[in-house]
């Protein structure tokens, strides 16, 4: 009797433990954030929210039953989850792929009606990367390692390029001439607008974030902490700079220096690297790991850390102000919307926060 009870206890205890152990398997990661200046688009778990930048209030749609949040989808579906950076086209479409294994589809959502315009289902694996729009095409980096060029109006495949056997996690970028896509298996590809490979370059380690384009140069970091500057037209290496820690985000630049943070276990380091030479201009240690790309404004550089800190510095690296979100983790790159800095924390009491250029919190959005 006693033995059976003990056995039953262990069996029942094992179920949630196994579930907890397995629960991490489906893709889940930090939120995706974008803005068009008026609205912020936040991809967080089961919704893509539309939030007014001016006051942090979620946009609503009038219905016969009263206004309802104009989020996508209208009601949470267990088969869908969203973490990629949303992209908005000039004709009012929102593009995002689902990170759920059960429905790894790429959606076009009409922002006026908040309805799905078309769905692309050939991506197979969960979508982590965002997309970019150019002309009548949306370029989407998929979980099956393929970069798809889809018609903006109909979602039909114009061309596709197999970049990797692994999932593509980085959003493609373009300098207007070539399209650049990077992979976890160390490759940088440059494609022409028809999807033909112009050049490729194998770097030393996995590449976690899209390149930064600075004129005729693309700058990209790897997990080994190396920051590479490549000629955008040829892929030839201009310089390489070895940083302490691993690089998880895209660099940003003010035209003089390239700014990038690194991860050194739980800590981080923030760097200014000369754009022309690759020489380290200055660096500063930070107690929190820095995975997100920094935000460069004309007057300050803002980076966020895993310890929940928003840090503002000037071009010499001197601190200007900092704000800390209690118990939060910040992995998503901050974005600038008018004069507000938007951050999307994890583990915080809110999903999105707005701070002015002096670090004062203006509003928060909880998603409720």
């Amino acid at each position, binding site marked *: *009797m*006693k*033995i*059976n009870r*003990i*056995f*039953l206890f*262990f*069996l029942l*205890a*094992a*179920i949630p*433990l*196994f*579930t907890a*152990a*397995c*629960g*991490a*398997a*489906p*893709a*889940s*990661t*930090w939120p995706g954030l974008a803005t068009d200046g008026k609205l912020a688009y936040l991809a967080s778990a089961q919704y893509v929210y539309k939030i007014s930048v001016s006051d942090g209030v979620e946009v609503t749609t009038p219905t016969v039953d009263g206004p309802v949040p104009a989020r996508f989808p209208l009601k949470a579906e267990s088969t869908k989850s969203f*973490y990629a950076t949303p992209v908005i086209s000039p004709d009012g479409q929102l593009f995002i792929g689902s*990170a759920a*294994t059960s429905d790894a589809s790429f959606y076009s959502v009409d922002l006026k009606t908040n309805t799905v315009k078309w769905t692309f289902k050939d991506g197979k*694996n*969960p979508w*982590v990367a965002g997309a970019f729009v150019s002309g009548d095409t949306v370029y989407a980096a998929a979980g099956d390692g393929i970069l798809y060029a889809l018609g903006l109006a109909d979602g039909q495949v114009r061309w596709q390029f197999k970049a990797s*056997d*692994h*999932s593509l*996690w980085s959003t493609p970028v373009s300098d207007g001439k070539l399209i650049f896509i990077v992979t*976890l*298996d*160390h490759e940088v590809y440059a494609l022409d607008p028809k999807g033909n490979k112009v050049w490729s370059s194998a770097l*030393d*380690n*996995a590449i*976690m974030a899209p390149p930064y384009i600075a004129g005729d140069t693309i700058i990209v970091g790897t*997990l*080994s902490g190396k920051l590479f500057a490549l000629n955008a037209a040829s892929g030839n290496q201009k310089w390489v700079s070895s940083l302490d820690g*691993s690089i*998880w985000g895209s660099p940003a630049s003010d035209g003089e220096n390239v700014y990038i943070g690194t*991860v050194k*276990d*739980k800590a981080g380091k923030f760097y200014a690297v000369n754009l022309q030479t690759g020489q380290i201009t200055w660096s500063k240690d930070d107690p929190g790991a820095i*995975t997100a790309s920094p935000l460069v404004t004309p007057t300050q550089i803002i980076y966020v850390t895993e310890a929940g800190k928003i840090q503002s510095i000037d071009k010499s690296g001197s601190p200007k102000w900092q704000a800390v979100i209690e118990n939060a983790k910040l*992995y998503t790159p901050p974005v600038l919307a008018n004069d507000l800095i938007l951050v999307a924390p994890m583990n915080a009491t809110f999903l999105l926060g707005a701070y002015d250029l002096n670090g004062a919190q203006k509003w928060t959005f909880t998603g409720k």
Partner: protein
Amino acid sequence: MGNIFDLLIVTPFTNVLLLIYAFVGNFGISIILFTILIRLVTHPIMAQQIKSSTAMQELMASDEWHKIQEKYKNDKEKLAQEQMRIYSEKGVSPFSSCLPTLIQFPILIGFYQSIVRAIGVSPLQLLGLVRSIYPGLENITHMASLSALIPIKSQFLWMNLGQPEGIQLSFLPFAIPVLAIIVGLTTYIQTKLTIQPAASPNDQSAQMNKMMSLYMPLLLFYFALNFASGLAVYFIASNLVGIVQYAALGKIDFKNVFSIGPAKKSDSRAKPGKRS
């Protein structure tokens, strides 16, 4: 608590798994080899569990046990005292068959978590993985360096070990979860083969055995259906190695596989209980 478990179990397991992967270059085979390794390391514990369980079963089948059950059926306190006396006399501990299970649980759960971590299917999970890798790992083999390990090649046979498995046939609107079905079948077979026979088909342990042989395959089928197929590979390997282990210990009764009810004692194994 979570950090200690991570430090002592999950992180070391993850590193061993990655080290095996660095040598064999195939994550599916790494999971299978590590499963065998874990099963071998925990084999003495399992053998002890079987021994204790068998002793317990024999005790509960003895005449003396049945007599006190009958004699003190209306006096629970006295019955408990008598049961403890018999345990003491026979040198059997009612907990001795549970303790090995208790020790194995953290190992099994840690192994699950190390597989999930090593697969790293999202940036956040990969960040956790990179932090878990011991700095000295690449000194053992250069193939265990970060640049060689990341990204883990998660393709094994027809499946992506980081995704749930299913074979899509053109004429079917859904994918066939081949691996989940194999998990369900091997779990059923292993459970039926290895469950210790109950003293009586009507007692609680017999009912428990029956529940186990039904629910465990369903539970693991559900996990295999919904989670990364790397876990399903682990389930299958673990089930098959478990069957081999039981066979090596002479504790398998193949007749049980085809029986619907609780596991029965075969003649060759039905030993009389020890009498005082």
